[in-house]
Each structure stands twice: as C-alpha cells, then as structure tokens.
C-alpha cells in the first residue's frame, strides 16, 4: 500500500473509532463505511468536518482497502477449530505465495483435482487448514448491513496482491480447458420461465438494461468487466461484494434457481470470462456503481 493510501486507512479507522464510540459498538469495516457516509451527510458534525479533509484522497483510495486490511489480519491470524492461520494456503503459486495469484485464477489444483476460482480455493483452505465447515460458510456467504463474511475480506486481500498485473488465467491443463468449454455452455444456456441465459444480457455489444451498461462478457474487450473493480465496494447499499455475489444475483435476475456457493458451475463461468479477459491489466479491488 502506498503511504497516502495507508494514511487514508488509518484516518478512516480513526473515524471508525470515533463513530463506534458514539454508537457504543465495535466497528466492522461495513459499519465504518456506512457510518462515515452517514456522518458526511450530517455536514456540520465534527466527524463530517474531519471526513471532508480526507475526501479528496478518499476518491483516489478505494474503500476496498479497508477490507484488504481486514482480510490481511484474518489471513495471518490463528483461527478456526484447528487454530491455524491461512499462511500455508496454496493459491496455485506455492504455499503462502499471494503475489500475482489472483490474476491466474481460476486454475487447476492437483490436490483437489479441480479447477477453482479464488473464493472457492480460499474457502477450501479455510476448511482444510483451519477446520471451518463449508456448509457453515455457505449459509450466509454474502455481505449484509450487519456482516461482511470473512471470505469476502480474504478474497479482497488476495486480489489486492495482484494489483497492476496482467490477467493470465491458465489453459494448460485439460481440466482448465474443460472448465472453459463447460463455462461457455452454461453462459449460453437458455432456460427458465423467461428463456434467459447470461448471453441474453451479456452476449452482444452495446446492450443495456434501463441505463445500466451490460458488458459483452463473451468478447475480449468486454470480458474485463468480470474482473475489473471486483471484489467491489458497491455504492448502492454500501457493501463489499465478490464475483460469487454478482453471479448469484445475475442468476436471480435470470429467474433460475439458486447456484451453490463456490460451486463448480460458478468456477467454470469465471474460467470462461477470465480467459476471455486474459491480457488486460487488473487494477485491484475497486468500487462499483
């Protein structure tokens, strides 16, 4: 983290304590964000004045960095039934190697004989290294006003370690190529009461739902949207989300039943979109509309 960005995080944490003290509760990153936003609208309070000072810097530094910091803490802490950290987790480049790992996922892992995206792999590490239960992690996997699930912060931390790097989702292993091809079939599969597939909304250029631009995720130029800004802090609602959430919500709009959290279906879709995005530079966790 650059020193300016670090200062923002520190400053915001300072604000968080002020807010938390006021509200009489401990601050999670989500509450920090929500409360600083609230504070800003009450423009005359002391906190708001303090906040204004940092606003300019804030616009350069994404609130996602708060979650990166939280994720780093979680990554290194001894946690779970096995009281272990995640520092031995292998994201494809060797145990504990995080630099550049995110832009090379989804990828094939020999230990599971599966292709796994970042969140799927991190959940796998939480289960195998720390002893958490996958079923528990899958119960409420998406951020809400009251809670940012740990995997969300962890994915954000890991993604931050690939900031500024070229996307290079591998296609060497036969299972990686299978994942791409199966992902493409899922992408184009029309079903359900409204006959939608992903491609209905994301299969051609210049499509919009109302005023929202829909990236053409089947194209080289458009597929970057499935990477850039994710994991993302969503201005609407003020929550941090990963691609697991984005795909889940798109399947809801597609009028399909619900896909399993960190399932192979989602990994394959992410492989399809990721490979299409290969060669673009990933700017790191970001902000979404």
């Amino acid at each position: 983290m650059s020193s300016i960005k670090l200062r923002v995080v520190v400053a915001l944490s300072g604000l968080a304590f002020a807010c938390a003290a006021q509200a009489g509760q401990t601050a999670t990153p989500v509450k920090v964000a929500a409360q600083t936003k609230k504070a800003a609208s009450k423009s005359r309070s002391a906190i708001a004045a303090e906040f204004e000072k940092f606003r300019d810097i804030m616009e350069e530094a994404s609130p996602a960095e708060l979650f990166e910091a939280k994720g780093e803490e979680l990554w290194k802490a001894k946690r779970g039934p096995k009281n272990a950290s995640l520092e031995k987790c292998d994201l494809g480049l060797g145990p504990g190697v995080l630099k550049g790992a995110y832009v090379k996922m989804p990828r094939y892992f020999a230990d599971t004989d599966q292709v796994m995206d970042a969140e799927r792999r991190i959940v796998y590490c939480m289960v195998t290294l720390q002893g958490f239960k996958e079923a528990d992690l899958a119960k409420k996997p998406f951020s809400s006003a009251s809670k940012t699930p740990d995997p969300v912060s962890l994915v954000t931390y890991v993604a931050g370690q690939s900031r500024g790097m070229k996307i290079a989702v591998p296609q060497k292993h036969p299972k990686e190529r299978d994942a791409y091809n199966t992902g493409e079939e899922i992408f184009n599969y029309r079903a359900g009461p409204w006959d939608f597939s992903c491609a209905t909304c994301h299969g051609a250029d210049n499509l919009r739902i109302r005023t929202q631009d829909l990236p053409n995720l089947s194209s080289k130029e458009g597929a970057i949207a499935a990477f850039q800004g994710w994991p993302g802090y969503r201005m609407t609602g003020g929550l941090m989300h990963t691609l697991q959430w984005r795909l889940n919500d798109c399947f809801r709009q597609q009028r399909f039943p619900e896909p399993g959290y960190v399932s192979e279906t989602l990994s394959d879709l992410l492989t399809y979109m990721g490979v299409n995005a290969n060669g673009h530079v990933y700017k790191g966790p970001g902000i979404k509309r």
Partner: protein
Amino acid sequence: MKIIQATIFGAAALAIAYTAQAQDYRAQAISMMKRDFHAKGIAGMDRLDEDTVQKICNLSHNNPPKGLAERLQQDQLEDIKYPADGKFLGDWKSGEKIAQRGRGMTWKDKDGKTSRGEPNGGSCYNCHQIGPDTTSFGSIGNSLLHFGKIRGYGADMQKYVYGKIYNAKAFNLCSAMPRFGHSDTLSEEQIKDLVALLLDPNSPVNK
C-alpha cells in the same frame, strides 16, 4: 403431439450441426447445473429443464434452420390464448405501470405476485424505449415509441401485439423477449393494458 414430433426431428437434425465434443460439454454443463443448484422460493429445479423452444435455440445458437423454426413458431402461435371477449385494448395508464415494473418470478416473489404483493411487472422498459417521458430504457429490444402511429391501430395490429406479448416466440423463435402469457407472468387483463399502451391513440406513446 406435434410439439414432440418436431422436437425429435429438430434435435436430431441439430445434433449433426453440434460437434460431438460440444455435445459432451453441453451435457456436462447441464448435469453440473442440476447438481450445483437448489430450489429457492418459487424458483424450482424444474426451471433448469429446457422446453422444446429453448432446446432448439440452445442447440442452434439461436439460429435454427428455417423450416424447423417455422414449424415450432406455428406450435407457439397455437398456444396463445386470445381474450374470449375479442377485445384487445385495456387501459394504457395501467399498462404504463406494468411496463415500468420489473419485478416478479424471482426467488423472493410469489406465484403471480411480487414480494411486495403487487401483480408481476413486464419489465418492458428494461429492454425497450416506450413512452416519451421515460429516458431510462434498455436497448435489448427495439424502440416502441410511436408504435401505433407508425404501425397502425387496426384490429390485426392489436391481435399481433397481444400475441407478441403473450408469446414472443410465436413470431421469432429465438427472440430475447420472454413469453409473458405462456409463462403465466402476466394476466390477460395486464396484456390488454399493455396493448393499449402501444396502440391506444390517446396513449402518450402515440402523441
């Protein structure tokens, strides 16, 4: 009966176009989804099953052979239930609300109703420009502004628009547009109101 025959014939014809390897991936994709998804609210697992039209469109990349498409469109046409009273024009004001509303048919909604207890919406503005005052419209469908003024207000046009909303696939087999009557999303009355939105000379669409 007819539908089944056409499917068998169509699927066989298309299987030749679809390479063996692509068929493997397709089969794998379908069984993977059936394993990985779960029912949620009104969205049951049966929603992952393709019907005839979906299957032919999936197998042909939305570009079915002409003869097959015509035959299946005929089946879809016969599926349309036109109003018993022979009237197609409802209330355009109500139609405008239905066109604006995008909710319905998701996990959180109820049968025929949204989670808020309102009737399902048509989400028409998600894809179409329609009235002159709504600038927030999508681009998946064509503009419907001045629809009646341009296309005419006659009984045949009313019947066509009613049918198109009821079952868009009767006129264009692999259309991106949902089949709102066929899928029980919209009621007869709601569809009439939408026809009025597009074809009532007093509707703002035609001003």
